[in-house]
């Protein structure tokens, strides 16, 4: 087996040095009755070539985004990631290191985490950020729990514009933690200003936090400044979720609107689609709430010579010190995905991110205008970044998406995929990024026209 260095002779020599007769002696404490004798009825070892062949076969069964006209968003976006990013994250020193427990020999990881925290705080316009969460959805769940801790209250009011699976994560954590979730309806018409008014009317001194998203699940942008004031008036916290981080290259930041916690998905930068994971959760808050924040944090310090360096810090919040009193049970962060994010963001810089954002936005505007002209299609979203919802009057969005997929067009996300209950079978969410060409637009427009005829 190519990964195992010992020769049979090595093993014999080592067993003799230990003073046992056979390897079985080292497993003597496993009860006789459960020792495996004849394997599992599974295949034996395979060559690298065989393994490669198996995965190629599996890969070839799928329709890759790069092989299609691609318009799916819904919390994961296809952006171009420069080759430099993937090369750098595969350097042995980054790829095969672990958590920087020994800072003297982990400054590479630590300094990039410090850069990452700075970038996230800047993008969100918040005072501090942590070293990442597993992904946007789990980060959002943790943000709600953090708000409960900080306010010593138990009720979260969740906008219907938050990604439906994020809401399911919040509900699941709240269910097991005996916390209350007040969920507002998830229809494009009920959101925006109308919903904000409804939320404000529901605020009370039991409310720990309000969770909203921008751009929301249907693509609509909202200003939460007035909401933030109302939330603060009852001493609750405003949590703003951002599932498309690129939007912050064009749109006012949640911190500027008065958010107390901003949490979201960083997958668009550096990470790729990966069929849903691994992704990278971004998490930021105010200095005041630092000690309630979950997850790892990297901080600046000096070494014995007075030279600047970085360490993991604030670990008195964490489970290896606090055990049952920890702020969270989280033990890892998104590691290599934070590195990919940091490097891609460093390559972009302010100039690149803004251009990437405008390229995505302008493409979406251009496509929305073209689709609006098709018979029986209504564009429901008025202000948006790179994603908007259309209504296919008289048609089932899921059927149309399936029909177009057969022509290598991944037309968007049928709302009913995530919200199967509700009057939304004819709603389709379409996302555009800088990767979409005019040819993609032509293909989608023509195919939709055909399908709607």
């Amino acid at each position, binding site marked *: 087996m190519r990964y195992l260095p010992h020769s049979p002779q090595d093993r014999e020599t*080592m067993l003799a040095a230990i003073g046992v007769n056979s390897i079985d002696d080292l497993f003597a404490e496993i*009860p006789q009755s459960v020792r495996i004798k004849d394997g*599992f009825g599974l295949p034996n070892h395979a060559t690298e070539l065989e393994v490669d062949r198996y995965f190629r076969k*599996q890969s070839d069964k*799928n329709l890759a985004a790069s092989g299609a006209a691609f318009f799916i968003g819904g919390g994961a976006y296809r952006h171009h990631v420069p080759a430099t990013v993937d090369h750098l994250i595969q350097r042995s020193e*980054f790829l095969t290191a672990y958590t920087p427990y020994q800072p003297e020999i982990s*400054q590479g990881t630590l300094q990039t985490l410090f850069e990452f925290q700075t970038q996230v705080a800047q993008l969100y316009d918040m005072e501090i950020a942590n070293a990442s969460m597993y992904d946007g959805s789990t980060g959002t769940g943790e943000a709600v729990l953090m708000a409960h801790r900080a306010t010593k209250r138990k009720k979260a009011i969740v906008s219907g514009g938050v990604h439906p699976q994020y809401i399911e994560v919040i509900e699941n954590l709240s269910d097991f933690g005996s916390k209350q979730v007040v969920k507002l309806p998830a229809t494009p018409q009920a959101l925006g200003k109308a919903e904000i008014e409804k939320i404000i009317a529901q605020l009370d001194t039991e409310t720990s936090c309000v969770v909203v998203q921008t751009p929301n699940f249907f693509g609509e942008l909202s200003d939460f400044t007035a909401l933030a004031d109302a939330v603060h008036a009852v001493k609750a916290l405003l949590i703003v979720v951002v599932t498309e981080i690129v939007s912050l290259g064009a749109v006012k930041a949640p911190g500027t609107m008065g958010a107390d916690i901003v949490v979201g998905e960083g997958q668009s930068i550096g990470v790729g689609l990966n069929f849903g994971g691994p992704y990278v959760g971004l998490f930021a808050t105010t200095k005041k709430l630092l000690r309630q924040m979950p997850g790892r944090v990297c901080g600046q310090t000096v070494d014995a010579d007075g030279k600047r360096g970085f360490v993991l810090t604030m670990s008195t919040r964490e*489970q290896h010190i606090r055990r049952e009193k920890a702020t969270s049970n989280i033990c890892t962060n998104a590691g290599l995905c934070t590195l990919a994010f940091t490097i891609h*963001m460093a390559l972009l810089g302010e100039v690149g991110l803004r251009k990437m954002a405008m390229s995505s936005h302008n493409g979406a505007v251009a496509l929305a205008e073209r689709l609006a002209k098709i018979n029986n299609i209504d564009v429901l979203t008025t202000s948006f970044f790179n994603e908007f919802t259309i209504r296919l009057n008289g048609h089932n969005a899921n059927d149309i998406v399936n029909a177009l997929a057969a022509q290598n067009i991944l037309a968007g996300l049928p709302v009913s995929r995530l919200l199967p209950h509700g009057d939304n079978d004819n709603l389709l969410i379409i996302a555009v990024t800088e990767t979409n060409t005019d040819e993609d637009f032509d293909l989608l427009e023509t195919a939709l026209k055909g399908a709607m005829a």
Partner: protein
Amino acid sequence: MNEKTTNKMNNVGRPSAPNQAESASEQIESASKHPTFTGNKALQINEPLLYEVGSIGQTGVDIATPRDIKTNRLGGLDRTTEIGLYGLSEPETMRHYVRLSQKNFAIDMAMYPLGSCTMKHNPRINEKIARLPGLADVHPLQPQQTVTGAIEVIETLAEWLMKLTGMAAVAMSPKAGAHGELCGMMAIEAALRARYEQGSETKKRTKVLIPESAHGTNPATAVFVGYQVVTIKTRDDGTVDPKDIKAALNDEIAAIMLTNPNTCGLFERDIMEIADAVHDAGAFFYCDGANFNAIMGRAKPGDLGVDAMHINLHKTFSTPHGGGGPGAGPVVLSEALAKFAPVPFVKRQGDRVTLVEHTENTASFGRMTAFHGQMGMNTRALAYILSHGQDGIKQAAEDAVLNANYIKAKLKDVMTPAFEEQSAGFKRPAMHEALFTDDFLKDTGITTLDFAKAMIDEGFHPMTMYFPLVVHGAMLIEPTESESKASLDLFIATMRDLALSAKNKQTNRFLGAPFHAPMKRLDETLAARKPILKWQKPQPQAEAAE
């Protein structure tokens, strides 16, 4: 940059005859006598922050000009103020991060015996196949018929995990080990709730038994799910006593969370008796599977009576540790818990595989995360598993255990193996980890931390320090199966040399170490007391003086 050397020309750079007899400390002294102009030391190049080498105007990506549109549709929410992001050109980016990478220790360089973390070789075929377009460049919400190959990969890995562990089901979505623990404890709570709903039990079970040797995540997880923690002490030989468990069991106990092999590197030899007692009391057995690497292919947790166990794909199945993630923590479940597994899960009907994404018409307790879990880790773990096959997996566990016992045998006369005295007359093998205490450092003035830092100078990553908490000054060494005999022998020789130095009170080798790393010891107290968590633009001189 080192201020002391700035603006001083290096005029002593002429080659001189090498001094063979030069000791480590003399080398350090000579290095300080030869400061460089840049503060760099040959291959050790200092690298400032992105914010000190880049600028707001710089970028390393060419992006096509955005399409012309009449008006934007941002609804007046345009970001008009500066974000503050700094950019670098592509060559500058490459250098910045390559230099930073060179300040990291990594498995690919040398032995990384971090106990409980299973720092094994990360095969590169795993990286290659994980990047195939049909596996990496697919969206989680594509129509399922366009991603059957990806769903089958999840299904195949799930089958292997169920067979290797002898369990009935597996939840594939948890994002890391601790997330898997949470998932397993939620499944247990869901099963208990079903009992209350059916009326087969009326009293709420509110407590979880956790041995004091457990990972810190275990109690943190139990509390997250709403339980109180009852701590079980470790007996003198490093394992838990079934008598203690039985005494603590009653109708308030929901579960026990037990690590096996445990964090002392020992197999809980009474595990089946414990499992029976737990089940007899109506409770569930959660096993922390962090140390599954030691027994895979030799025993199935299902046969030991486990109801739920997470598997760290980044430990046992070689997905890269990546500087602290991403992990992946699938949870295998017993028959009793299987139906409560979270969505999504794979369903096969004949030739057709689908992902069930909604809880309707299922007993599923809910959703752990958006989408389907760590697909990129699943592909890598399956590549590792297929490469090894059932024979290779068993051999890997055996070599991991062999290596740990070899280290223990070769170091026990100069260091202090934990629990050795208590086990006199009955020599208990270690599993895949060798645990030592700091007894051998008594009266030397050298601590476990000092010892670890001296290992850094010798080119090794230190072992896990001060964990588990049940022994004094713990040193937990996990070599994994990836180390050759030559590599182990060098490690052993080095550890012996260090231990003898310590015993001879040669403290200068330890106190203040590391001397050869890119940094001296860092002030962690300062970092925590005055948190600086992001870069801030330096204030102009005049303002700063005010």
